[in-house]
């Protein structure tokens, strides 16, 4: 096997084509049966190609970071996994279930944290968590357990019973993560979750993701944050104009390499 910076770059900068079904993911957590899988996934809006022929696999205990500029197709990919959009062709699978065919069943394995976790202002953090957890099938969680989960997510104990109208964005994101923890989902979809968070809150967030990864959760995170992607992710994919143009494992590259590869693809 080749080693050294140059060979790692060569592997990392591999541009995927439609007939290249074997990806570097096979060497990481995705060697196990994938929790999330996109098969030639395509979404077109009349003239616009939002996602084109995407092949992607995220296995248990893997954090896959999707990088790309605005409009690259990252959020569309996540929405396709959530069944919010119908694919034009191809398919999205969650724990082997085709999302288009079994939209509700596939969601039982998923948790989702958007860029802005929006909660019900008139309810407390605990009540919000109880509500979303119950809808996610965790109806029997006690108040004590829910409070513990909020603590695990990093929410201060004195904020648990306060109405979320007084919460900062960071606190709301923590409740969002708590919702994901409570659901005990097999896969977590994150759409720019650290956008607008201060560095400390972002670090706490990364630590939470590490914990989830250690529990075997597969994480697909759309982000602009190259640093966070390198630090947190196990693999990184770069999207541009709806296409996955590069894919690499993070332990093969350094921060500078990732930045350079990213910029190269953006200027092509």
């Amino acid at each position: 096997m080749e080693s050294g910076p140059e060979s790692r770059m060569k592997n990392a900068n591999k541009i995927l084509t439609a007939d290249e079904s074997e990806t570097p993911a096979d060497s990481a957590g995705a060697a196990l049966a994938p929790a999330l899988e996109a098969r030639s996934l395509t979404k077109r809006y009349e003239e616009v190609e939002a996602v084109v022929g995407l092949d992607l696999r995220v296995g248990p205990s893997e954090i896959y970071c999707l990088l790309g500029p605005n409009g690259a197709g990252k959020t569309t990919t996540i929405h396709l996994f959530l069944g919010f959009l119908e694919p034009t062709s191809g398919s999205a699978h969650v724990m082997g279930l085709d999302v288009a065919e079994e939209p509700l069943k596939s969601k039982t394995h998923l948790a989702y944290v958007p860029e802005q976790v929006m909660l019900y202002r008139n309810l407390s953090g605990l009540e919000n968590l109880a509500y979303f957890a119950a809808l996610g099938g965790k109806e029997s969680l006690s108040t004590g357990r829910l409070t513990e989960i909020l603590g695990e997510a990093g929410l201060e104990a004195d904020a648990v019973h306060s109405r979320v109208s007084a919460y900062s964005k960071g606190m709301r994101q923590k409740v969002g993560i708590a919702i994901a923890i409570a659901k005990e989902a097999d896969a977590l979809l994150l759409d720019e979750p650290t956008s607008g968070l201060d560095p400390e809150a972002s670090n706490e967030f990364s630590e939470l993701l590490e914990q989830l990864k250690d529990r075997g959760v597969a994480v697909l995170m759309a982000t602009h944050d190259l640093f966070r992607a390198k630090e947190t992710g196990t693999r990184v994919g770069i999207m541009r104009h709806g296409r996955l143009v590069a894919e690499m494992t993070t332990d093969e590259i350094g921060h500078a390499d990732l930045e350079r590869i990213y910029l190269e693809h953006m200027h092509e």
Partner: protein
Amino acid sequence: MIRHIVRKEFMDVVRDGRFRWCAALVGALLLVSLGTGWVQSRNAQKELAAAQATARDHWESQGEKNPHSAAHYGVYAFKPRLALSFVDEGVDPYTGTSVFLEAHRQNDFLLRPAQDATPAQRIGALTAAQVLQHLVPLLIILLTFGALAGERERGTLRQLLATGIGRLELAMGKALGVAAALALLLVPAAVVGAAAIVVGSPGPATSPLVRGAVLAGIYLAYFATFIGLSLAVSARAPSARTALVVLLAVWVVNGLVAPRVAVDFSKWLYPTPSAVEFAHNLEQEMADGVEGVDRPDRAAVTQNLLAQYNLENVEDLPINAIGVFLQESEKFGNQIFDRNYGALWDTFERQGYVHEALAVTAPLLAVRTLSMGLAGTDVEQHRHFAIAAEEYRRDLVERLNGDLTENSRTGEVYLATADFWSQMPPFRYDAPEVSWVLKNRVLSLLMLGLWLAAAFVAATYAVRRAEVA
């Protein structure tokens, strides 16, 4: 799963200060209108009962009198306030509550409360039915316009659907949550209404509790229709603000435009004569008769009697020829009345059908018709009473003419004895059964059912196709 949504929606709504203020206002208006309506109905019924007793007392205290003079002395029939009239006073303020019954004439109704109302009363009068028909739907709109559009705008819809909850489950939970919040003000009002019926009905009615239960069912269907429509609009509208504007437009059309248009259109399609025109036509036909209905000729009546008894002199007749002639005149008059009033009532009935059919444009038209019908204050039940009063008038006049005919001879001065008047049965009115009301209002029931089904289908369709973000 749904119970969690219901509970959350209920908590969310109840904790919203805007809801608390609106609900308190609507609830207070509902209870006050029920209370004042009940007191007014009860007082009015007491007054009517007292007036009926006084009129009967006057009738029985006439002393010795010629029966035909008594027929002109006349009696009053008072329309009772039915048990649920405190909920919906319907057309009662405009149709009048008493009628003077006398020989030769079918009089118009008197004592129209609307005539006696001050301008302030005319503007400020608010019945429980108006609160239920107008303000509760407005409250429903305020509670539900953001049900899905607001969730989408806030970004919570994505998070909700990401949990794995079905869209229809979510919509159903939201609908029931709003219903639970509404129950906070409607259940106390229903309890007060039921207690008012049980503790002391303002007036007589057949099965008042059954009427009340059916009325409650009608209003529940109406509210469910509004919840369904609001959810449908909220699911399809691009923003919560747009949903609110669309729903307020629906409310205006339903509550303000459609009723006005329905009245004008039905009157345009089936015009009714003015009161002056009607009275003039009636007077003319009474004077001249019409084809096939000739005014009786006193000489001809006498000649027929003489021929019948094979006599030559009217004084020899064993009966009073004038009594026979008076009864023949009554029969003539009755045919003219049936012809004119019948045509008028038939026109009202056709207008009513058109009005009911136009409920296809607004559910309020169906609900209003059913509400008045169950409260016993609609045109049909006014007609039911008017027919009963007219039948009594005809029977009474026939008895009086019969007494004159049988107990005196032509040319004699005849006075009935003082105790004769109490032998005349008093006027007694039995309000129609609930089944009679519903049978007459099948079209409105059908229209309300159609609205409810359409709202359900629209909500299902819209929710299934709602944009998530």
